[in-house]
C-alpha cells in the first residue's frame, strides 16, 4: 500500500502556476480511486442487472424454446407476437395472464391496506408512554419478517390444512372451516351465494373483458388466496410497524403538548396531529407494499403452485412456469416485462394520487 504519486495527476499539478496547496495531486488520486472503488459494484450491476434485462428484451421478441443459444442462431425474431398473444389474441396464454392479474389484483387490494393499517395500529399502541414490555412486543411482531418465506410457508401449510390449527379453532368456536388450500371459490361469489345468487347472472356471464367474463373478473380472491393474504399480512406488518415507530419517535413532544393544551382528545390527537405528520412514512410504506405485493412468488411456488383452479396463479409465477416448465421463453420474458410495466405504472399512479390530495389539503 504505497502512496504512489500518479503520473498524469502529478503532471497536471505541475502545469498549474504555483499551486498554493498540492491539491491537484490529491484530486487526481481521488478520481482514480473513485472509479477503482466503484468499479466492482458497477461491473456486477452491469453484468447481472443491465445485461440480463437486455438479453431478456431480445428473448421476449423471439421464439426461443430453450434449445441452442438464443443469441447465436437458436432463436428467431418474431416481432411483438409474444406480447400480442398475451394481450390481444384470444387463447390460453391470454386467459392465464388475465387470471393471474385478477388474482394478484385482489391480493394487492387486500394485503396493502391491511398490512399498513395493522402496522400503523401496532406502532401507535407501542408508542404509548410508560408501556411495560415494549421491547418484547416489538420483537414478537418483527420476528416473522426476518424468517425465511419457505419456513413460514410450511408453518402456514400446516396451520391452514383441512384438519389444521385454524380449522380446529373455527370448530371450537362452533363453525366449520373450509379446506383452505383446496378451495377455489371466490369470496365475492361465496358472499353472493349467501345472498341467494347461486349462478352467474346472464349479463355478467355473457359479457367480458380481455377473454374473461365479468363474472370471473368479479370472483374476488379465492379461499386459498385468502390464506396467502393472511400469510403476507402476518409476515410483513412487523417491518412496516418499525418504520412507523421510527417516524413516531421523530415527532417532537411539544407537538402533543400543544394539542393537549388546546383540549384535543386522544383520538383527535392521533387523527389530526399524528397521522398528518406520518404522511411521508405512510407514502413509503404504501409504495413498498405495492411493489412487494405485485411480486408474490415464493409462497405460490411452495404452497399452491397456482392451484386450486389457477386461483393463486400470479404473474411472477406464471412467467416462471411459462419459461422453465413450458419452455415458452419468449412468452415468459414478455410476462416479466408486462409485470414490470404494471409495477412502474401503479407506483407512478400512486405517487400522483397521493400528491394531489396533499395539495388539496394544503
Amino acid at each position, binding site marked *: 500500500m504505497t502512496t504512489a504519486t500518479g503520473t498524469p495527476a502529478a503532471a497536471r499539478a505541475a502545469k498549474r502556476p504555483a499551486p498554493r496547496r498540492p491539491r491537484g495531486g490529491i484530486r487526481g488520486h481521488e478520481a482514480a480511486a473513485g472509479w477503482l472503488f466503484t468499479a466492482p459494484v458497477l461491473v456486477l450491476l452491469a453484468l447481472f442487472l443491465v445485461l440480463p434485462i437486455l438479453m431478456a428484451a431480445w428473448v421476449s421478441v423471439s421464439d426461443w424454446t430453450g434449445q441452442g443459444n438464443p443469441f447465436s442462431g437458436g432463436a428467431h425474431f418474431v416481432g411483438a407476437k409474444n406480447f400480442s398473444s398475451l394481450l390481444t389474441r384470444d387463447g390460453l396464454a391470454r386467459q392465464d395472464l388475465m387470471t393471474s392479474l385478477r388474482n394478484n389484483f385482489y391480493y394487492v387490494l387486500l394485503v396493502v391496506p391491511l398490512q399498513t393499517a395493522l402496522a400503523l395500529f401496532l406502532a401507535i399502541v407501542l408508542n404509548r408512554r410508560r408501556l411495560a414490555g415494549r421491547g418484547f412486543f416489538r420483537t414478537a411482531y418483527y420476528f416473522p419478517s426476518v424468517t425465511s418465506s419457505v419456513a413460514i410457508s410450511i408453518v402456514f401449510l400446516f396451520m391452514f390444512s383441512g384438519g389444521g390449527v385454524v380449522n380446529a379453532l373455527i370448530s371450537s368456536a362452533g363453525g366449520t372451516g373450509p379446506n383452505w388450500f383446496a378451495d377455489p371459490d371466490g369470496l365475492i361469489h361465496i358472499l353472493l351465494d349467501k345472498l341467494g345468487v347461486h349462478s352467474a347472472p346472464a349479463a355478467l356471464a355473457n359479457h367480458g373483458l380481455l377473454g374473461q367474463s365479468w363474472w370471473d373478473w368479479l370472483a374476488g380472491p379465492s379461499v386459498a388466496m385468502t390464506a396467502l393474504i393472511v400469510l403476507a399480512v402476518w409476515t410483513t406488518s412487523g417491518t412496516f410497524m418499525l*418504520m412507523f415507530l*421510527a417516524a413516531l419517535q421523530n415527532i417532537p413532544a411539544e407537538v402533543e403538548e400543544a394539542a393537549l393544551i388546546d383540549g384535543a382528545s386522544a383520538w383527535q390527537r392521533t387523527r389530526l396531529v399524528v397521522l398528518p405528520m406520518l404522511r411521508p412514512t405512510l407514502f413509503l410504506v404504501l409504495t413498498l407494499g405495492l411493489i412487494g405485493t405485485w411480486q408474490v412468488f415464493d409462497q405460490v411456488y411452495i404452497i399452491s403452485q397456482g392451484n386450486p383452479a389457477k386461483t393463486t396463479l400470479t404473474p411472477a409465477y406464471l412467467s416462471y412456469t411459462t419459461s422453465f416448465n413450458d419452455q415458452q421463453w419468449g412468452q415468459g420474458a414478455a410476462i416479466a416485462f408486462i409485470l414490470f410495466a404494471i409495477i412502474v405504472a401503479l407506483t407512478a399512479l400512486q405517487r400522483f394520487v397521493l400528491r394531489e390530495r396533499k395539495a388539496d389539503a394544503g
Partner: protein
Amino acid sequence: MTLTERTARARKPYRPGQLSPRARAASYAALLLFALIYIFPFLIELGSSFKTDADATNHPLNPLPQHWTLAAFHQLGQQDFPLWFANSAFVAVSVTAGRILFDSMAGYALARLRFRGRGAVFSAVIAVMAVPSVVLMIPKFLVLNEFGIYNTYSGMIIPLIADAAGVFIMKQFFESIPGSVEEAARIDGAGVLRTFWSVVLPMARPALITLTVLSFQGSWNELSHFIVSRQSPQLNTLTSGVATLVSGQLGKGNQYPLKLSAALLMTIPVALVFFFFQRHIMRGTEGAVKE
C-alpha cells in the same frame, strides 16, 4: 436496547400521555392478543417438530407433543438436509463477505471521493434499486447460461453480491461521520487506499454490522435466485431443498413433523443472528425512514 431507549427519552420523543385505566387495559389486551397471534405459529412449529405424524394430525392446536420423538430429525439427517445446510452457509457467508467489501468501497467513494461522474454513478445505483427482483428471474437465468456459470456455486453467489441497497446504506453512513480523521491521515501522508483500509473501515463498524446482518439474512432466506441459477440437487440450498421436500418427492400427503422440523432448523441461524444483533437490524429498517 436500553441505550437507544435512553437517548430516545432524552430527545423527548412524541409519546401520548396518561391513559384512562380502561384504555390502558384495552391497549395491553390488544398488544397481548397480537403477540399471541405472532408467536403461536412458531410454538406450533417448535412443538410439532417433536411429534409423531399421527399426533400432529390429531392434535394440531396443542403445541406440546403427546409422545416426544426425534424421528423427524433423524429422517432429515438421512435426506440431503446436512448438504443443503452446508450449501446455504457457504453461499450466505460468501455473499456477505463480497457485499461488505464492495458495498463499503463503493459507498465510501460515493460519499467522500470527488470524481467526475460520481453523480451519474449514484443515479445508476438508485435506478437499479427500483428494478423488481422477480422480474429478473428469467433474465438472470439467461445471463448465467450465456456465461457458462449456470448450475455452479459462482452462478449462485456472484449475482447476489450485486447489491445496490447495501451501497446506499454505506454511503449514508460515511456521509454522517466527520471527515477530520481522514484529513489527518491524509496530512500524515496516507494514500486513499490506506486511509480507507486502516482509518475509515474501522470507524464504520456499526454500519458494517448492519450490512452483515442484512446480507446474511437476505442470502440465507433467498429462494428465487437459487431456483433459476441451478438445477443439480447437489447444489440445493436450504430454501430450494426444503421447497422440494414440501412440493415434490413427498407429495402433499402429510409428514408435517418432518417439514416443520426442516422449517425449524432453517430458522435457527437467522433467529440467532436476529437476537444477537436485533438492534442493528431494527436500525437498518428505521434508517429507511430517518435517513
